[in-house]
């Protein structure tokens, strides 16, 4: 595996990542969400052509504790073969962002507590590495003892110690023939000192990169920024940095601005679940129309539709009843959904409780988010990341700013 930083803009950087499988892509990169190895609603055979960058997926080892068993994955020859996603990057992330909260419950020396298909249970090192080795991921995160920022100092210190010990233990259990694919976890939640200590320890290990944990758990945004900065300052520049739990556009921008290279995000799916299509503009060069600025929300639109420029609510009666809207979700979007279908059709599908609506929305939302990541990379290459971030966050202020991801912060 090779990772090379190609361009910088502030602390943000564009890199090229070349995996042992030969797959190559640019960072910062979005990891698409999977459950039991497959996308939640996007047909797997459509994933390859969804977008030029739709090549990298996240998966959770906790989905392979029982149902299916690690043995089933091993028998298939790894998660790529099991899910028939050869040609994709599969990155194992312990945290299941799709719904399972980190409560920072008791962890023992043996393992941490995770939500699984059979309820909450302690997952120990041997078990975790059995699954990781059976899955043969392209990259994998070491077993974390991840806690939110409000835990007592003692618990926080314990989580740093555990995480460091478990990193070493995981490394000792990794299959040699898979090479160095470990992303060592960095925790530290409520304390900058602990964060730095965790990062320092991880930095000395022989890993492919790092995974920053303990974010997206209700922490103050500014605090998060300090934690990212403090941690990354201790990490070598030439190794990958992943963060879990941060997924909204603003969180992505903050993370990238601090120097993060990989993020798994449930943001597209969260919008899809709320019947929203992602529509925020991607090009700061295109001036916003005065009409967009002046439009007021009407009674028709639900709270979540925000007549914001960010998303449209496909459940809204506007698309079918009064005014039949035969435009695509985003005019000019080249995704499968926008090339073939209209808002009124998706509205009709939602009214008829057809699951095709979710599939079409998820395809578009994923595509749009991959375009967002591409725009981020372009801005870094042009050394304009700061401007891009400022522009993006300021234009989000138009209309209401209710953002679905905020409701999912623990």
């Amino acid at each position, binding site marked *: 595996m090779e990772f090379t930083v190609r361009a910088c803009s502030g602390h943000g950087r564009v890199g090229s990542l070349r995996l042992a499988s030969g797959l190559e892509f640019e960072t910062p990169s979005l990891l698409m969400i999977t459950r*039991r190895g497959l996308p939640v609603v996007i047909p797997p055979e459509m994933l390859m052509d969804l977008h030029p960058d739709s090549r990298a997926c996240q998966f959770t080892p906790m989905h392979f504790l029982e149902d299916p068993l690690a043995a089933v994955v091993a028998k298939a020859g790894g998660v790529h073969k099991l899910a028939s996603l050869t040609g994709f990057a599969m990155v194992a992330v312990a945290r299941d962002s799709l719904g399972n909260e980190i409560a920072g419950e008791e962890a023992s020396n043996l393992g941490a507590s995770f939500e699984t298909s059979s309820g909450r249970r302690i997952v120990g090192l041997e078990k975790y590495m059995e699954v990781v080795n059976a899955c043969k991921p392209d990259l994998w995160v070491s077993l974390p003892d991840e806690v939110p920022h409000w835990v007592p100092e003692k618990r926080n210190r314990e989580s740093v110690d555990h995480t460091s010990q478990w990193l070493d233990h995981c490394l000792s259990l990794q299959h040699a023939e898979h090479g160095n694919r470990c992303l060592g976890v960095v925790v530290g939640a409520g304390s900058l000192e602990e964060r730095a200590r965790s990062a320092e320890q991880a930095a000395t290990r022989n890993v492919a990169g790092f995974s920053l944990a303990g974010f997206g758990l209700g922490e103050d945004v500014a605090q998060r920024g300090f934690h990212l900065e403090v941690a990354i300052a201790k990490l070598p520049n030439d190794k990958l940095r992943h963060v879990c739990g941060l997924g909204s556009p603003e969180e992505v921008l903050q993370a990238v601005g601090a120097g993060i290279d990989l993020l798994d995000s449930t943001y597209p799916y969260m919008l899809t679940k709320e019947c929203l299509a992602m529509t925020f503009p991607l090009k700061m060069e295109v001036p916003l129309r005065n009409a967009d600025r002046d439009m007021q929300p009407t009674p028709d639109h639900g709270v979540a539709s925000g007549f914001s420029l960010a998303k449209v609510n496909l459940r809204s009666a506007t698309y079918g009843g009064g005014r039949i809207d035969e435009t695509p979700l985003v005019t000019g979007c080249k995704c499968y959904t926008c090339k073939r279908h209209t808002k009124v059709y998706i509205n009709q599908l939602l009214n008829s409780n057809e699951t095709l609506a979710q599939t079409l929305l998820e395809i578009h939302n994923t595509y749009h988010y991959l375009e967002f990541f591409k725009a981020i990379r372009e801005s870094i290459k042009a050394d304009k990341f700061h401007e891009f971030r400022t522009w993006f966050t300021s234009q989000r202020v138009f209309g209401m700013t209710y953002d679905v991801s905020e409701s999912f912060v623990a």
Partner: protein
Amino acid sequence: MNWPRALLTDSGGFQMVSLLHLADITEEGVTFQSPVDGKPMLLTPEDSIQIQNKIGADIIMALDDVVKTTTTGPRVEEAMYRTLRWIDRCIAAHSRPHEQNLFGIVQGGLDPQLRDICLEGLVARNLPGYAIGGLAGGEGKDAFWRVVAQCTAGLPEDKPRYVMGIGFPLDIVVCTALGADMYDCVYPTRTARFGSALVSEGVLRLTHAAMATDYRPLDSSCTCMVCKRYTRAYLHTLVTKEAMGSQLVSYHNISHMMQLSRNLHSSILEGRFPEFVQSFLQKQFPKGDVPDWVCNAMDVAGIDISMCRIPQSA
């Protein structure tokens, strides 16, 4: 929909009766509870045809007075005669006869005489195609195939015959042997959502514990995307738990039905239809226990399946 292939719309009649609360049928039309706001709504033959004209499908169905197959008594006769009166209203209301083909639906319950009257009446209207309706309810298989046989015998040779609501592969093979051409059913996708895959041997229940360690594809003779990529063991963990499980098994089941249609079609064209039927039955009933109703139907269809009644030796 951006669907460039053929489309058929139903009249709404069956859905009203089967899915909605309190359908009241009069000469005027069907009164039912609106699924949107619960208020009473009336669907007349004219309404149904107008809506279908707007949707624009290639084949549209007449609104018929459909009764449950288990119904007996004068209601069955009333429904049959009303269906004939309604077909004339449908024909009159149809505003796009050169673009959309209006099919009539043969009713009459399980009564051969009523069916005959209905057949005669519909054939006299010289419609582009005909459906055999009122079946796929609670009737026994023996009654079912006899009605299908009677109708196919009484319908014109050169027009499509559509048996509504049929979807079990075995039923499709039998009806095809009896001279039917078209079928529709929720069965393949519905059974997929419950974790059952359609395979050459019958139905594979993926939820069964044995599937957890079965690393074969769903159907060894299937070339669909799902069978090329995934094992029973993996699908076992997905069905009834992930939306993707339903999607993948639905995909396979639909592929399976498409392949069955293709096989029926090409075996007839190539003059080896009886052989196909025999092979089909042998795979479904390796112990030779072909149901009596199938044997009787194949008798009438003129297909020798005596070899299917002998157990297949290992």
